[in-house]
């Protein structure tokens, strides 16, 4: 097997993994959450069943919905899968990863969000518009913080290419770096906001006043809703993997050999399991904060990211 063809196979494997593993991860988080709250869970595979069921349901469209509304689910899903091809999940040698760096990744997520927001307003209902405006508020604060955090990591690893950065981290000795610690904290806060988890947003609620993301997607149905939900699951998985790739990529394959891929899968599963536990711990311990507090929350993320960058210059 030639080198390039092996990496193409790895790439395909990775995209498939991301797409088909995502509902499992969502299911894992829900399962843990049910356990933590002493409820009976619907099982680890329930998200698959939900998506499967939704694909066979009829699509109900609002009367004055334009093409944007119909186009959005595919756009969002496509963009998210594209992001899945860029982020090193199982191997640092994904060929597509070289074409887009971490800034492009942020832009891809932004594109998906932009269309979601348009679609939310397109249906012409009050909730959709409210959801869109809230989502954009969160995004406008989260993105600078995200970039700042990412820049800090790029500075430390002297590259903005994700696979290159991950490669550097895997191969360098473990060091106590205050800049990375701050960046990690900031990244965790941003990931919570970006994936719409408690305490910023509650993915399980449909209560009018507190919804952010859900309000925006309220009008979708049938296969459109299936795609949106699926994309949401993938996004959660991707942020978890991005965190892993940037801060704890040890165990990830650097080549295309079968053995290293197996190790990579095992470690990835273990890390995701741990992240799932962490999410559940946060979600059961904290209450959702008032929407007016969200800017402060993200301000703290921005501050942490900036401190990370400053301490890179000052202390390292």
């Amino acid at each position, binding site marked *: 097997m030639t080198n390039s063809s092996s990496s193409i196979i790895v790439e395909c494997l990775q995209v498939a993994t991301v797409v088909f593993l995502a509902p499992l991860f969502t299911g894992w988080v829900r399962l843990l959450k049910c356990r933590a709250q002493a409820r009976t869970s619907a099982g680890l595979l329930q998200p698959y069943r939900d998506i499967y069921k939704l694909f066979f349901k009829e699509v109900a469209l609002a009367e004055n919905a334009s093409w944007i509304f119909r186009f959005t689910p595919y756009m969002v899903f496509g963009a998210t899968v594209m992001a899945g091809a860029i982020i090193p999940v199982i191997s640092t040698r994904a060929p597509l990863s070289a074409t887009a760096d971490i800034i492009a990744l942020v832009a891809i997520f932004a594109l998906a969000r932009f269309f979601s927001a348009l679609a939310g307003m397109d249906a012409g209902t009050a909730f959709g518009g409210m959801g869109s405006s809230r989502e954009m508020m969160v995004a406008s604060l989260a993105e600078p913080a995200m970039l700042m955090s990412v820049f800090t990591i790029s500075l430390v690893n002297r590259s903005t290419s994700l696979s290159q950065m991950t490669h550097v981290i895997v191969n360098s000795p473990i060091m106590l770096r*205050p800049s990375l610690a701050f960046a990690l904290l900031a990244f965790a806060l941003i990931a919570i906001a970006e994936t719409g988890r408690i305490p910023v947003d509650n993915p399980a609620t449909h209560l009018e006043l507190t919804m952010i993301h859900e309000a925006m997607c309220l009008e979708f149905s049938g296969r459109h809703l299936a795609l949106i939900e699926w994309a949401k699951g993938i996004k959660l998985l991707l942020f978890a993997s991005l965190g892993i790739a940037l801060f704890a990529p040890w165990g990830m394959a650097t080549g295309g050999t079968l053995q290293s891929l197996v190790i990579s899968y095992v470690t990835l599963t273990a890390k995701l399991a741990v992240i799932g536990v962490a999410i559940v711990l946060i979600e059961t311990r904290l209450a959702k904060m008032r929407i007016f507090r969200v800017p402060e929350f993200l301000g703290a993320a921005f501050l942490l990211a900036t*401190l990370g960058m400053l301490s890179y210059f000052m202390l390292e």
Partner: protein
Amino acid sequence: MSHELAIEINSLLAALILLTSFGLLVQRRVYGLLHIFAWQGVFLSVSTAIVGYSAGLNHLYISAAMTLVIKVFALPYILYVLIHKLRIKKEVEDMVNIPTTMLIGIAVVIFSYHLTAPIRELSTLMTRSTLAVALSTVLLGLLMMITRKKAVTQIIGFLALENGLFFAATSATYGMPLVVELGVALDILIAAFIFGMFFFQIRTSFDSLDLKEMEKLKDLD
């Protein structure tokens, strides 16, 4: 403990001290402020001890112990008792809103980094890079005193400022001569008693510890 590891731990502690300074700036609750302040003292004390260990300077252990006793236990305890006794409102109102304060704070850190640049270049000590953090802590304490209008928060800002000075002494010169450090510690203790008495005086004459009441002394009245 190797020398490199000591440097790494020390810069991590410096980063944590910086983080606590910002924490003091953004924290809303009085008890939260006390906790953050105590943590700052812990980091400061550990950092001093580590520097003392790796530089082989015994007098830094005394400083570290003094910091631990005064800044981590005594002062937060005194403040806690005062707050409890005077039934101070838990929420702290601020003059400038928190995001703005944070941005100013970041600017302050950059400013201190530039100001201390010549010293960093001249110094050969392992702690030289933390001097910028020390000056930032001083200036952030100052910022906190400016932006907060409660007697308690001003005092906490003042004490955080003292922490920064102490940290500066450690990072620039491995600590001042012992006689100076002891004297400074004594002064801080006296200051603690004075502000304790002040709280009662202010409380009895203004019925609150809010310094907004205290704007009577102007030239034109």
